[in-house]
């Protein structure tokens, strides 16, 4: 399933294409990690969503040139990324693994990696300090990483990716292990980077996290892109599937009986405060409900579509 015809290359994000993936596949022996993905990625924040083991991290590794596609290509700014180190001066990556030079302080860690971006020691340190400040770690910067909490470790990992001010940022599960306040600040930071015109790709298996960062998503499952684009565009695509509408009415039983008479209504479930109506024709159903209520003297207190959140989209498409 795709949002666009097969002949067209799907694109997510705005502006020029920054990352171009062409028929990229990667096998781990007999197991396929990424399966024939073609995609253009522009500017702004892109959420890469999928369940654990869907192939998100493998795709991230292809996008960052850590792995070479078995077939196909991945290009960044028009340059094939495998074994092209110059691209990395414009790219920052937050890997999923919880790996650090434990004996270093957070400041040393970020400074060291920033120096390897070609900055002098003094400038690398200044950039490291600024970057550490952006992730609210200034007070802890001189402590050894081995003494950090999970959330602090995650934030210092983000700091190393930001310090050289890259155009492209890839964050693999960046909110793992963060507390609610840290989570909020990272989400805000990602939003700011997207607003600044950078290409930011964030992978997550937790849908509501990504929902707070962007409406641009790529859904991936079993190594394949299941859907891509704007969340609302994806909604259009899934309209052929049963779509749930929540109705809180003064007489739920009567409303349920009236709706059950229509062919597009697949099922009706009673909840504490109303009914969940599954329909194959959501637009018709949305316009029908107020009319039925008016004709039958039923008061409608609330109509909502739980399907508007990513969870519902995800459930539909990865089935």
């Amino acid at each position: 399933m795709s949002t666009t015809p097969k002949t067209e290359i799907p694109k997510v994000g705005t502006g020029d294409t920054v990352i171009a993936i062409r028929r990229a596949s990667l096998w781990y022996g007999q197991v396929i990690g990424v399966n024939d993905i073609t995609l253009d990625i522009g500017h702004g924040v892109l959420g890469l969503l999928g369940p654990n083991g869907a192939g998100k991290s493998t795709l991230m590794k292809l996008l960052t040139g850590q792995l070479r596609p078995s077939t196909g290509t991945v290009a960044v700014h028009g340059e094939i990324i495998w074994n092209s180190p110059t691209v990395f001066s414009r790219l920052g990556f937050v890997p999923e693994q919880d790996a650090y030079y434990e004996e270093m302080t957070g400041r040393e860690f970020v400074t060291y990696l920033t120096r390897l971006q070609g900055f002098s020691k003094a400038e690398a340190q200044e950039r490291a300090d600024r970057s550490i400040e952006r992730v609210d770690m200034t007070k802890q910067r001189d402590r050894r990483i081995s003494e950090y909490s999970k959330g602090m470790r995650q934030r210092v990992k983000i700091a190393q990716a930001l310090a050289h001010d890259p155009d492209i940022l890839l964050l693999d599960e960046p909110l793992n292990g963060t507390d609610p306040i840290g989570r909020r600040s990272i989400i805000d930071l990602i939003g700011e980077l997207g607003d600044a015109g950078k290409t930011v790709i964030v992978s997550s298996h937790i849908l509501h996290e990504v929902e707070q960062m962007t409406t641009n998503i790529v859904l991936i499952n079993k190594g394949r892109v299941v859907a891509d684009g704007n969340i609302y565009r994806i909604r259009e695509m899934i309209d052929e599937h049963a779509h749930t509408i929540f109705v809180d009415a003064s007489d739920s039983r009567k409303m349920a009986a009236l709706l059950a008479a229509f062919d597009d209504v697949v099922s009706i479930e009673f909840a504490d405060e109303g009914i969940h109506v599954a329909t194959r024709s959501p637009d018709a159903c949305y316009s029908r409900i107020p009319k039925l209520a008016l004709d039958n003297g039923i008061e409608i207190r609330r109509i909502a579509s739980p399907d508007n959140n990513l969870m519902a989209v995800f459930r539909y498409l990865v089935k």
Partner: protein
Amino acid sequence: MMSSVRKLGTMSLLSTLIGVQLRQLLMQRKTKALAVVQLMPLIGALVYVVFENIDGLTMFSGVAESLLLPFLVPLAAIFYGGPAVVDEMEGRTLTYLTLRPISKATLFVGKVIAGTIMALAIVLIPTLLLFGLCMFQSMDFAESLPVLGRVLAAASCGIIAYSAIFAALGALFASSLLASILYFVAFEMVLATLPVLELLSIRFHLRTIAGFTSSDRLGFLDRMVLDQPLQLEWWVSLLIVAVLAALGIAGGSMIFKEKQYLV
């Protein structure tokens, strides 16, 4: 705000990498442990000095021939050469390095150079101290200097060659210790005792560079195929060791550049 001047040249990034790596290696526990091991001959020599029952130059040559070149030199290379890139793989920090604007081949070379410098320091400093102690005993400094020069040259060549080969094996198998030990047993312990095939061992050439005789070799095996034990000129052995080191570095760089590591 400072000006943003980035030096993305290979040499600039390489020197940064080597500098930071050296500092990291210096702080590691294994460096302290290896330093203790490397100082052992010095402690042993101190005992002899106290009892004054051996000639200093003989003692220095004996330690170099029987302990330094066959064991302490490869041990230092096993500690620093093999793990040069494998430590980053096992610690899962390799990702950070491979995402810098520095080619993987340069990264490999930088890591091996840093490891080799560290190994040289940790082997040569105790060797110099040992020499000083032995000279304190014999007081025959001028006559002994050429021996010291040859031993230092042989130890340095050995460290460079072993480190390069062990690092290449580490890049190939993504595991350094087992591969290095297998290599050491196969080439340096088994082949080193066989006629002609001993030329494939670094140990043979280090002995030649250091100017040691072939007295401890299995003479009867040599005599089965040769009239007398094989002997090369020191500079030929030096050349062979240099070629082996270059092959290790080139092969390791190539493997590290092309191989995909699942970190």
